């Protein structure tokens, strides 16, 4: 029982990242009709927003310490971050320590801007082109973006830890009456799950309870009619592209303490996220979220030793296996809308 609970927690945590990326992908597909293969790159750029802020906060003054030597035997150059000099050692270190949560504020405007530039500068030229063209151009863009990041930050993963207060793990099992250490789960992963729930709720609320969101939903259902009512739906859709980029970026920012960011992390999520979107149903926002969590949980269960001993290698194919079964039984996916990608 404790092992099952542990894998459910794991699945919810994995599913959080899948759901957030798939949500953004679906937003873009549902509004603009574009299959965006650069969406994984947006997740990666979000992670590097956190890396960048960490580097900015660590910009330092250099003093020479004659008493210490560097690896060549020369006097050691000691670095003191400016934030420590300006705000005092304790406050300065606390600011650096909280760089990942602070990066949320840093990343939102950057990701909105990146999304806006991407949509206006490139993707709008491919609205009326076949999906194959859109996939090619956005995939090419993803490669360009990851090579830019590699040129700037190198290929090695860059450690970007969570604040000290969130390190370690919660003995979840004790809260539910299990033995100590039976179900432990890292604080930051629980925070990631909670954060993704809040972001998903915020996106749905925005679309459901605001006039802007209502117009966007109307545009997703019937773009032409909304246009005939004199509403500039293109402008709203461009903004939604920025929102989708920001959602992917925030998912990336908060993911940095879980796995150290590297330039190809977006590609690791891209294919899985597309499977999530297809399983959830092209164009269905609730479907994307549901499929994200469902596939995350299934993937975690498939990694259990008990399951792998019966079907070796199942952990590597489970997501694709489920996708095949669902698409054979429900060709539109779990919550796919009629008419989407069916022409």
């Amino acid at each position: 029982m404790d092992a099952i609970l542990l894998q459910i927690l794991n699945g919810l945590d994995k599913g959080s990242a899948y759901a957030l990326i798939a949500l953004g992908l679906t937003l873009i597909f549902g509004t603009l009709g574009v299959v965006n293969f650069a969406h994984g790159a947006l997740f990666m750029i979000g992670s590097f927003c956190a890396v960048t802020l960490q580097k900015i906060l660590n910009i330092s003054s250099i003093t020479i310490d004659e008493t210490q030597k560097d690896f060549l035997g020369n006097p050691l150059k000691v670095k003191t971050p400016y934030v420590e000099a300006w705000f005092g050692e304790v406050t300065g270190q606390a600011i650096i320590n909280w760089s990942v949560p602070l990066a949320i504020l840093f990343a939102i405007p950057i990701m909105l801007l990146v999304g806006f530039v991407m949509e206006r500068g490139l993707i709008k030229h491919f609205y009326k082109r076949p999906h194959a063209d859109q996939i090619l151009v956005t995939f090419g863009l993803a490669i360009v973006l990851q090579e830019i990041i590699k040129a700037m930050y190198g290929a090695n993963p860059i450690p970007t830890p969570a604040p000290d207060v969130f390190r370690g793990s919660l003995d979840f099992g004790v809260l539910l009456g299990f033995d100590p250490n039976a179900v432990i789960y890292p604080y930051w992963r629980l925070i990631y799950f909670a954060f993704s729930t809040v972001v998903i709720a915020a996106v749905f609320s925005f679309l459901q309870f605001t006039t802007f969101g209502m117009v966007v939903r109307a545009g997703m259902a019937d773009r032409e009619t909304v246009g005939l009512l004199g509403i500039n739906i293109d402008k709203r859709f461009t903004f939604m592209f920025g929102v989708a980029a920001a959602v992917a970026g925030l998912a990336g920012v908060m993911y940095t303490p879980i796995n150290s960011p590297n330039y190809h992390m977006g590609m690791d999520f891209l294919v899985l996220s597309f499977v999530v979107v297809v399983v959830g149903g092209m164009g269905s926002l609730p479907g994307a979220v549901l499929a994200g969590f469902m596939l995350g949980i299934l993937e975690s269960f498939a990694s259990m030793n008990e399951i792998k001993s019966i079907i070796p290698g199942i952990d590597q194919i489970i997501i694709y296996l489920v996708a095949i079964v669902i698409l054979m039984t429900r060709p539109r996916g779990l919550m796919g809308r009629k008419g989407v990608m069916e022409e």
Partner: protein
Amino acid sequence: MSHIKTTRRGVLKGGAAVGVGLATPTFFTSMANAYTNAPTGGSVTLGFNVPQTGPYADEGNDELLAQQLAVAHLNGEGDGGCLSTFTSKALKGNGILGNKVTFVTGDTQTKSDAARASAKSMIEKDGAIMINGGSSSGVAIAVQGLCQDAGVIFMAGLTHSNDTTGKDKKANGFRHFFNGYMSGAALAPVLEKEYGKDRRAYHLTADYTWGWTQQESIAAATEGVGWETVNNVLTPLASTDFSSYIAPVLNSGADVLVLNHYGGNMVNSLTNAIQFGLLDKQVNGKDFKIVVPLYSELMAAGAGENIKGVFGSMNWNWQLQDDGTKAFVKSFGEKYGKPPSNSAQTCYAQTLLYADACERAGTHNPCGVAEALEGFEFDGLGNGPTLYRADDHQCFKDVLVVKGAENPTNAYDTLEIVEKTPRAQVEYAPDHPMFAGGALGDCNPGA
């Protein structure tokens, strides 16, 4: 006065003939020689096959910097590096056998097929007479096989699988880097001393040749000092999140987690294990411990503070204090502003060892070079007294047991040396079961 009539057909025929001539790979022109890519025109070309793109690009770049440094030293440029400390005095800084050393590079992408393609191109198009580099055992075994068939020497870079000089060994292939067996033989006594005899280990293992042989070696060595292996779980090489594999560890009854992972896998699995608070827990009345049998400086930097106090092993470390290490670190550090990694050091040493073997053999013929390397004993390249064993083309030398630095003072101070395990302790018989199943075969000079 003669008159040459130019026709369209004549131009096409002539153009085709010139094109074929220019496009003919040096592989075919070398047929006239006794061996593949015999040097002509006063220069000799070495092929450096390293990951220049992909997740190991930083490690590949470090290897390439060291290889370029070696070429400079061979040609008499720079401060000479280890030429002054190397016990063999055959190298004079005038190239190899009087030929100026040039090099070409290939990108392995850490993929076997891409690595073979780039090595093939360097051999057939660029005339490379030796291939060196790489940071994966899968790649090393693939390229070693290609070099054997093409008739050039392969001086392996970072490859730690027992199979490279075990069941997949080749007469044209040579490995300076240590292997999984040696890691186990060096680590087990230190782990016993630090953590005791009564320990239960849970292994997570990358599912490919290197992971399998390392796990087998570490499990055998630790069981030899009294530990029990509770479980071994194979993880897909493409995994990025190891939480599903780590979550069950605490309930397994194990009190040690052994991560048979390298590169990005190691960074992520170790980070995930620390997140789960394994090092803060007690199991079986003992503090839980993590072991990473194979370390590299670049990956240690990627894992950040997570490696503090975690034991592992290395082929070499820039903090060693022998003359060879000091000369190489000074030369590399002054040129590039950072200390070299152990993958850089092995590539540098291999390039010098190849050149030295050519000088001592008096030829570039791969069979003469191989003969000069076989059974060669040397010192002064940073690893202490070393033997290139003739039976399997594996170097035998001291192995370092290291652990993550507890109180790093700078960005490069990520690992501290715990013990220099003497060569005698990591030696094994050529027919040891972990290395059985293959044969060196005969040297292939190619053409």
